[in-house]
């Protein structure tokens, strides 16, 4: 699935029109906790989130996310849109909620790119 197909599927609005719509989406990940995203997401995923601040874009960039879908039709602040433009990561606003979006994408054949992680005690040097 590429980004333009994703936009159709989520009835989304692309907030940065110059983003690369040909990028491949290998699967999905949904979270509002950016540390969870950083811990578990695999490269080339679509990130579903209810969070609207610029940290979403930074997190996406760090974890090689292909596209971001903001849930429940929220409009992120301009600084978030600007950063998405700068980093050329597609930022999409969808009217659907998180549960509905996960369901739609999963049904369309998109796999989970949330890698299972153990939160066992870390060791120190």
């Amino acid at each position, binding site marked *: 699935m590429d980004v333009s197909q994703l936009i159709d599927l989520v009835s989304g609005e692309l907030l940065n029109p110059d983003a690369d719509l*040909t990028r491949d989406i290998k699967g999905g990940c949904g979270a509002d906790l950016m540390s*969870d995203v950083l811990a578990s997401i695999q490269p080339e995923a679509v990130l579903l989130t209810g969070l609207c601040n610029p*940290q979403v874009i930074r997190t996406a960039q*760090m974890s*090689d996310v292909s596209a971001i879908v903001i849930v429940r039709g929220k409009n992120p602040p301009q600084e978030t849109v600007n950063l998405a433009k700068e980093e050329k990561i597609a930022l999409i606003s969808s009217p659907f909620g998180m549960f509905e979006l996960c369901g739609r994408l999963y049904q369309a054949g998109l796999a989970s790119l949330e890698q299972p992680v153990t939160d066992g005690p*870390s060791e120190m*040097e």
Partner: protein
Amino acid sequence: MSSEESRKNILVDDSVAENITRVEELAYELKIREVMERNVRTLDSELKMQSAADLFRQQRISGAPVTKNGELIGILSIEDVIRCLVANDMDAPVTRYMTSKVRTIMATDPVVEALKFFVNTGVGRLPVLDEKGNMEGIITKGDLTSGLLFALQRSIQEEELKTYRASHLFEDITSNRTSLILRYVIQPRDFTHGGTASSNIKRALLRMGASPQIARRCGIAAYEAEMNLIIHTTNGGNMRVEIEPHKIALDVFDYGPGIPDIESAMKPGYSTATDSIRELGFGAGMGLVNIARCVDSMKLESVVGKGTRLKMTILLESETVGEGYAGKKEVS
């Protein structure tokens, strides 16, 4: 048709598609002035059609603007010459056969405007006007194509050259121990710019030829550490990245307030962050745990009232993707 054959028939593969979008970008970035022909051959309004036809043939041009006292009054194309030939009227002045309603374009317009015009009208050339309305040049489909191709090649070469230079940095310099050090100052509570340093670190590593996996691990570790400085420190802190051919060392330090209980701080889910931090998607007590997963070794030291220092190392030889320090059970 076999899949091999069908693949051959696909004219646009991924790498080509990438270039197409870059061309589209360039069509908006480039201005008409940068690709137009400045050396315009004009026809005087008194000129006879026979002379215009001779000029077209000798100069191998297919059209030219017509001027009267330096002012643009029309445009004569090869089709007009043919009409005139058919009518056997070659002694007529060019003004009789020229198109007098001339469409023009501004030198400051983006190239895409000319592209749209050519596609929609089928017209072959557009006189280019400067800010004062004087003719500055002329643009044809050929100028557009060569201008775009030239700009595309230049932009690809620039990026390749940057990456090439960076990735050969270590080969070109001889010393007992060569390293590149990047330093960043992080302001406290600067959530708008939070992650900029880590973003630059990741970009630098990719440019230096690091694998995407290494750049990703390093980026995530740096980002969590950077957010820690923004969220928790009194006066911000510093990040120092030392890149060597075989390892990357991240050193993140601040001058307070310090961590009272390091053991708890390393436990997943332990957090001292406020609700407002949590609303930003951070402060869930996963930062140090995430860092541990990304790096090959880490060391956290802190003195309350003095400051905290987090040192992390990522080795470049063993590219164990996603299996950082925490994933290696045999390491104690």
